[in-house]
């Protein structure tokens, strides 16, 4: 078995997502002691191993949990006192761990009590992650080219190709960046660039193979629009493109560019990018090609709450079919210097309460995606930390910056220290994970 890839068909946690069984197995897999080792990829345990370990652990967990909880009675009385029978039903559905309808999700988002949502979302999170662990990733963003034929209004990064600062990074430079990443304990790269019309599939095949021959590193790369671009210039179908990229070493695809999957809003935000069903269908094609992906949502830009729910439903439905999303990532719109903000000067930044509500409702509705990230990058470290009590089980990536790595990794290690402390102070055990959410290192208690 290729250790660097996630085999969707045989992966126990994904199988269980489909069957809508609480995914204890996945947690058990995370706790496998052989996984808590130095960075590197390990073989997944067999189902029987997982079941055995899980039953042992659930006994221990039961013995440790006190029987009385103030919280529960307080929250149950809040549910009883819900302002409408529909809302009460939505709370009860969520509490029972059953699937919420779109209407119920919308009701929770619009009139759910923030504390109650946090309590319910934490319960939903514990179905996937009962052990109070919060993960983070060490990886490096490599923008292999800035030449792009799309050129979105909100982007300051792209070049047309004739400018002096247009670039396609030489392989040697990419290798060097990867070496630096591995040196400081990083386990993955996030490679994205422009939609460069000069780069055909052979370029990517050659690049990915050259990386995989040299390094044990996870390749989380490209985006829907890049994949479509490659298919187009190489005169291939999306399916063929994905097959070949995977064969060359691509491990997974980031779910960027999803923005809000409601067409009326999407058109307003980035008219050039494809309609939402295109995004979903490329992602699903990737899943069918055994390439797992993440899914993202960017909100706080013009959409209404019903659009947020629509987005969640679309991803949930797609997941029911192909079961390849292993994480859901929420971002809030960052307005500065964008055309969108110029056109809509009254647009307010997403508030803390709104973000936590959206996060909690996402956790409650996404009963088939195991991981949800809290975004300290867009919401700041404070709300990022608080989000761990509203359904998030992951803090995302500590991106290794260029200058930082060259400065011998000192300030980088401070970032890591801060991340670990942030998670610990929120009451959780910090763990470093790989891109597939396997636990690599568990940080010990300091006291």
């Amino acid at each position: 078995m290729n250790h660097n890839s996630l085999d969707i068909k045989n992966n126990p946690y994904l199988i269980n997502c489909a069957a809508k069984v609480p995914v204890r197995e996945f947690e058990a897999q995370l706790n496998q002691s052989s996984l808590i080792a130095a960075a590197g990829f390990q073989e997944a345990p067999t189902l029987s191993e997982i079941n055995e370990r899980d039953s042992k652990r659930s006994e221990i967990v039961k013995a440790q949990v006190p029987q009385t909880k103030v919280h529960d009675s307080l929250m149950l009385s809040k549910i009883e006192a819900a302002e409408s029978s529909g809302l009460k039903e939505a709370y009860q559905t969520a509490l029972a761990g059953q699937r919420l309808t779109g209407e119920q999700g919308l009701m929770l988002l619009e009139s759910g009590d923030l504390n109650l949502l946090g309590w319910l979302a934490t319960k939903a999170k514990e179905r996937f992650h009962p052990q109070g662990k919060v993960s983070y990733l060490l990886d490096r963003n490599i923008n292999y080219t800035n030449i792009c034929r799309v050129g979105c209004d909100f982007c300051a990064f792209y070049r047309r190709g004739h400018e002096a600062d247009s670039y396609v990074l030489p392989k040697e430079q990419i290798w060097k960046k990867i070496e630096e990443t591995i040196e400081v304990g990083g386990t993955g790269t996030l490679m994205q660039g422009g939609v460069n019309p000069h780069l055909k599939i052979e370029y990517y095949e050659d690049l990915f193979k050259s990386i995989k021959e040299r390094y044990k590193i996870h390749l989380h790369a490209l985006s829907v629009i890049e994949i479509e671009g490659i298919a187009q210039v190489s005169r291939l179908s999306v399916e063929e493109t994905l097959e070949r990229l995977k064969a060359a070493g691509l491990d997974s695809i980031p779910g960027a560019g999803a923005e809000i999957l409601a067409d009326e809003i999407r058109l307003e935000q980035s008219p050039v990018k494809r309609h939402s069903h295109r995004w979903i269908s490329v992602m699903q094609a990737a899943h069918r090609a055994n390439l797992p992906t993440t899914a993202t949502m960017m909100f706080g830009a013009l959409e209404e709450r019903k659009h947020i729910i629509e987005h969640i439903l679309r991803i949930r439905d797609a997941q029911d079919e192909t079961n390849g999303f292993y994480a859901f990532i929420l971002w809030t719109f960052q307005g500065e210097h964008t055309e969108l903000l110029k056109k809509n000067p009254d647009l307010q930044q997403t508030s803390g309460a709104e973000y936590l509500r959206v996060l909690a409702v996402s956790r409650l509705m996404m009963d088939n995606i195991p991981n949800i990230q809290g975004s300290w990058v867009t919401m700041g470290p404070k709300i990022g930390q608080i989000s761990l009590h509203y359904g998030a089980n992951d803090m995302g990536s500590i991106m290794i910056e260029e200058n930082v790595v060259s400065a011998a990794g000192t300030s980088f290690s401070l970032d890591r220290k801060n991340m670990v402390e942030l998670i610990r102070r929120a009451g959780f055990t910090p763990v470093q994970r790989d891109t597939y959410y396997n636990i690599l290192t568990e940080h010990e208690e300091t006291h």
Partner: protein
Amino acid sequence: MESVTCSAPHVPHGRHAVPQKSQGARARYQEIQRALEKALRGERLSFDEGVSLFYSPDLVELGAVADALNQKKNGRDVYFNVNRHINPTNICALSCKFCAFSRKPGDEGAYAYSEDEIAHRAKVAAESGATEVHMVGGLHPRWKLENYKNIIRTVKATAPHLHVKAFTAVELDWLARKERKTVHDVLCELRDSGLGSLPGGGAEIFAPYVREKICDTKLTGEGWLNIHKTAHQMGLRSNCTMLYGHIEDIGARVDHMIRLRELQDETNGFNVFIPLAFQPENNELGIDRHTYGVDDLKTIAVARIMLDNFKHIKSYWVMTGERVAQTALHYGANDLDGTVVEEKIANMAGSRAGMAMAKSRILGVIRDAGRIPVERSTVYEPIRRYDNPAEDQQ
């Protein structure tokens, strides 16, 4: 006059009040559960119980209990006021290690407003709909009681309806010693000039083992409490604060709250308790981090639970940022402070929250949290309840 003493400290001197290790996670959890049940029954919590709450693993639970206690007192109303800060001078005789605001005479950036400058600010405040000016500043070595009286008179002459909430206990103590008068007499003169109430600054942390490390030249904790007691006995209401997130331990925080609770039992003169998150830039304590979001929320929640004789707990957005301050409205806070034009003290210490929030923004933030905005006066009389967004402009 009987004075407040800190002779029976709630915290063993210099020791960290951390629950015993041998206690075990389960026993600790049950202690927390018992404390929360007690709080919900309306009973008063002890020092140990207060400390245990800070060690609660379940943030949302703490918040739900604090929120229930808050809603019993205040319903869904959240207060704010339209105010303006005037920091008359940053020249200060003290050298508190956490302060980024103070300057020595002749230092670059040292300033002291003239009466005209104060009048101008008061005028702008009144024109923008403010009902209060909040004035605190450094201990200017050359300013006398007369200067302070003039500052108040200037504001009152410019805009008679503005409530003057001015001068911390630290400034009052300094003035009294300089003038060789009692604090009572100083307060009488200031009140005659138009002083309306006292702000809550300068309390920092009362516990001596912390205070001596962060501001050894400042008024002591006992001194601070005594001055507020004096004010309360004269009928002047006041606020109280706690500076947290620096070198203090949890015990010192709970101790601080209990001392305030005891004085409130005696005088009932505090309007509101305001936890202030430490700002890490430009200080001498060597602390380079902002407080944690979870810690901000816990501190608000524990304050709500411990301070059973306070009606109002403020989540001061200048210190924690707007997002956390808003979230805190579900953790026991029922006040977002005000529009705060020109806040300088936290700003110079690295607050990321900016210096002003428009009234429309405050209304939006409170409503977005599912609460009803109520504009209040300085002493918490409701001025207007904004329960219909369509009528905001009227």
